[in-house]
């Protein structure tokens, strides 16, 4: 047989194995970094948009909104800043980078080891485990740098920065991001499976560190024992470092060295830990990682086994008992078995670790503590419209934001449950597919899930209201009404959220939806009264649902009802009816796809 293959004069680039090995040895980490960056491209639009949009949002909300209140009473020239906006700008950069670190060093790492096993693909090449780890870190650092550059440019455009040395904030922010991200990466990479760990880290580590790191006020505003959190937090050190380079905040040399030294030490130690774990998992050991909650599972299992063997076995079942069938109107959609869906949710909550459940109520408490204690010294009181009728001139800042935070947490919980959770069960765990195999109808599933979201939200609201009552911020009667209102607000958002989810096709679209929530939180007169804004902007804010929720809560908290209260209530009634109708109409599109 004659060879028909044409022989090329040049040998294949893959021929010289020695050269390849040498090249990988030198550049391997960069190859992995390239892979990391390429996989970020799927989210490229979201990343660029958030990098541009976040600073603008914070400038408008915190710098200009809260700045009006704070600037009237507090002078920031002692810190070297011309305005409140300038004071918080570097800290917001460092904080947003830290938040991003909380995502980039958790989910993609889990994806690498478990969900898509990307790291095992790299392991099969001549890359070393430490190169794989370093590559991921380099890729993420690039994202931080791009984010910081865009952020800085926007801040310059708004006049929130004046000194050219402010560009150096980039290094402070990236260093801070790594100092908070690498320890998380080291921890996450020891896990065989992620069971809400990323959420726990977000809520128990990053959130407290962010809120008590002197981002929106000098750390010294807080009581001594809370300042300790700031000293430990890499975010505070990055904030302060950023302020020094951005507007020359007067800082003694030793403190400057402490900031840099602390961040570098954390980064180096955490890197060594990451390196060690990666070598264990991707090296010859092939360690598969810890299984969190294994002991608890075993304990529960043996307990259940023991209980069963004590009870003896069940008798043989005698045929299927007759099941009452709901016939008549809409029998194709609703089989009258919401309870089963709800019970399933409770079983799942019971089997999951309790800490995830508890963590939901932590966030509003942390916000209240941070802003109530930290911002209050800069503001003597709020002259809200409700204050006059309550028989006082002003109300305390903490009392002002507390009802708003309850409304926000009701919104967040409901939206999360009706969008992300529904989408996750639809696409990833296929739970709804399972349910739709049975005699359940889509309406059973939808209402069951909404009830579950309200049940969870109700418990969280109860916890938060307990804190408010203990702090003397609301009266018991108001608290009861506020609890009902929180459920009402949650129901409104859940109906709209579920209707919107029926139009979603990919996870990226969910990201965009989430991006609406943060500005809504920042602008809806939550942290400052609406009248800091010009009339035109006020109208826009008043059209948003959260503003109505916040105002409704305040009306109840300060026992100040007017015809506007009715408007707020009707707004949510419309949301429930319109969202519910649309969701019901889209029910088949949602669950039977």
């Amino acid at each position: 047989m004659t060879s028909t293959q044409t022989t090329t004069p040049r040998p294949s680039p893959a021929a010289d194995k020695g050269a390849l090995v040498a090249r990988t040895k030198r550049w391997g980490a960069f190859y992995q970094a390239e892979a990391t960056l390429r996989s970020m491209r799927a989210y490229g639009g979201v990343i660029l948009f958030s990098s541009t949009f976040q600073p603008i949002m914070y400038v408008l909300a915190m710098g200009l909104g809260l700045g009006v209140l704070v600037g009237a009473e507090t002078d920031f020239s002692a810190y070297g800043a011309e305005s409140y906006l300038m004071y918080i700008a570097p800290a917001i950069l460092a904080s947003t980078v830290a938040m991003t670190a909380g995502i980039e060093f958790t989910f993609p790492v889990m994806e690498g080891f478990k969900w898509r096993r990307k790291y095992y693909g790299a392991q099969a090449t001549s890359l070393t485990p430490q190169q794989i780890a370093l590559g991921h870190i380099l890729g993420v650092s690039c994202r931080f740098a791009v984010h910081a550059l865009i952020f800085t440019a926007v801040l310059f455009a708004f006049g929130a920065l004046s000194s050219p040395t402010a560009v150096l904030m980039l290094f402070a922010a990236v260093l801070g991001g790594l100092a908070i991200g690498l320890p998380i990466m080291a921890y996450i990479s020891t896990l065989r499976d992620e069971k809400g760990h990323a959420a726990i880290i977000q809520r128990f580590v990053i959130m407290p560190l962010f809120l008590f790191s002197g981002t929106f006020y000098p750390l010294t505003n807080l009581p001594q024992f809370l300042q300790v959190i700031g000293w430990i937090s890499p975010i505070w050190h990055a904030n302060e470092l950023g302020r020094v380079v951005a507007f020359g905040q007067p800082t003694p040399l030793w403190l400057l060295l402490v900031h840099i030294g602390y961040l570098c030490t954390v980064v180096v130690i955490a890197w060594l830990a990451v390196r060690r774990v990666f070598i264990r998992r991707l090296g010859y050991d092939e360690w598969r990682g810890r299984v969190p909650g294994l002991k608890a599972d075993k304990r529960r299992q043996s307990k259940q086994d023991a209980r069963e063997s004590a009870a003896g076995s069940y008798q043989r079942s005698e045929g299927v008992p007759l099941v009452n069938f709901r016939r008549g109107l809409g029998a194709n959609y609703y089989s009258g078995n919401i309870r089963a869906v709800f019970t399933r949710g409770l079983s799942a909550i019971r089997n999951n670790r309790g800490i995830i459940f508890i963590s939901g109520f932590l966030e509003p408490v942390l916000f209240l503590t941070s802003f109530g204690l930290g911002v209050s010294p800069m503001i003597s009181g709020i002259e809200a419209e409700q204050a006059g009728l309550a028989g006082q001139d002003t109300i305390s800042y903490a009392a002002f934001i507390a009802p708003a935070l309850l409304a926000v947490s009701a919104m967040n919980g409901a939206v999360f449950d009706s969008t992300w959770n529904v989408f996750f069960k639809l696409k990833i765990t296929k739970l709804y597919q399972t349910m739709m195999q049975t005699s359940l109808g889509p309406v059973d599933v939808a209402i069951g899930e909404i009830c579950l979201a309200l049940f969870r939200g109700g418990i969280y609201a109860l916890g938060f209201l307990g804190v408010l009552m203990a702090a003397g911020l609301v009266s018991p009667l108001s608290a009861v009404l506020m609890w009902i209102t929180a459920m009402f607000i949650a129901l409104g958002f859940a109906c709209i959220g579920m209707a919107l989810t029926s139009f979603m096709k990919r996870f990226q679209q969910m990201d965009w939806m989430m991006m609406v929530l943060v500005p809504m939180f920042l602008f809806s007169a939550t942290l400052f009264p609406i009248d800091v804004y010009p009339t035109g902007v006020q109208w826009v804010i008043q059209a948003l649902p959260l503003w109505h929720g916040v105002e409704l809560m305040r009306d109840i908290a300060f026992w100040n009802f007017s015809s506007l209260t009715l408007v707020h209530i009707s707004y949510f009634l419309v949301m429930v009816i319109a969202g519910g109708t649309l969701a019901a109409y889209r029910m088949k599109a949602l669950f039977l796809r």
Partner: protein
Amino acid sequence: MPITTALASSAPSETVSAAAIHAQDLVKKYGDFTAVDGISFSVTRGESFGLLGPNGAGKSTTMRMIAAVASRTSGQMLVAGLDPEQQGPEVRARLGVIPQQDNLDEELTVRENIIMYGRYFGLPRRYLLAKADELLTFAQLEHKANSRVEDLSGGMKRRLTIARALVNEPEVLLLDEPTTGLDPQARHVLWDRLFRLKESGTTLVLTTHHMDEAEQLCDRLVVVDHGTIMAEGSPAGLIREHSTREVLELRFGMDRNAEQAKTLEELLTNTGRDMARTDPYGSARVPDVAVPTGTGEVGFSHIEVLPDRLLVYAEQAEAAMEKIHAAGHRPMTSLVRRSSLEDVFLRLTGRSLID
């Protein structure tokens, strides 16, 4: 088992309602794409019915329409005399569905999975506690009752999915590729369980692209391709109708298969005359007496050319093999086997079933 192809055009209405499943001119379109293009079939109670076809033939879509989770673009469908699109929950109450991918609830334990699933059907807890034990025994999962689902192996998960689908004692069990991705031992355990169900009178409807599975489990099957039915019958009947009894697989090396096919076809069709004289190579090494001569005995039908091998269809593949050897052709490898549904499919569509 009576094999009834009761298509509604001629069948009286009692036959239609007596059928477990009756589908007439079923069409499903997704935008421009037609997944199912006018399928008609009917499944009698207690029958084991198979949908055979390659990936993307429209099997799973048909299953989803039976299971009352997908709407039809046009056509009629009755499951136990009910329209799945109008009476979804009531139809699903009579079905047990085993999807292609196990969709077990990972947040619940093994036993909770069965009980919870029963709750979705509205079954009382007291019944379910006993039933769950029974099903765990059936699935050989008693010792795993309180484990988490993620601790189970692939075969165990599959058995749990099947056990779970039986919790409402369904009249019809829908199995979408029941053993795909399982190792041979796990497959046989599963087949054994399914066979028992069949014996106890449950109607089975399964899709598969594994011939052996179809041959093991199906009384009757339809071959589906591009959303239409290509053939219908029992596994053995289909083979008899569309293929020869045996197949000879030959490999001559990648480039030579096609040219060899022509030579062999000539050789095997021209065997009416005495072989020793017509042999162009005059090979004398193979004694003529051992070779069964005459077309009747080789029973040559045709040759299929695949990229990597030739398939020679003959009633007596051994005889054809010896004839080819006698003619001096030396394939690199050769294999004689029985004809399977794979060959039926190849004959009907000109394509392989598993690509």
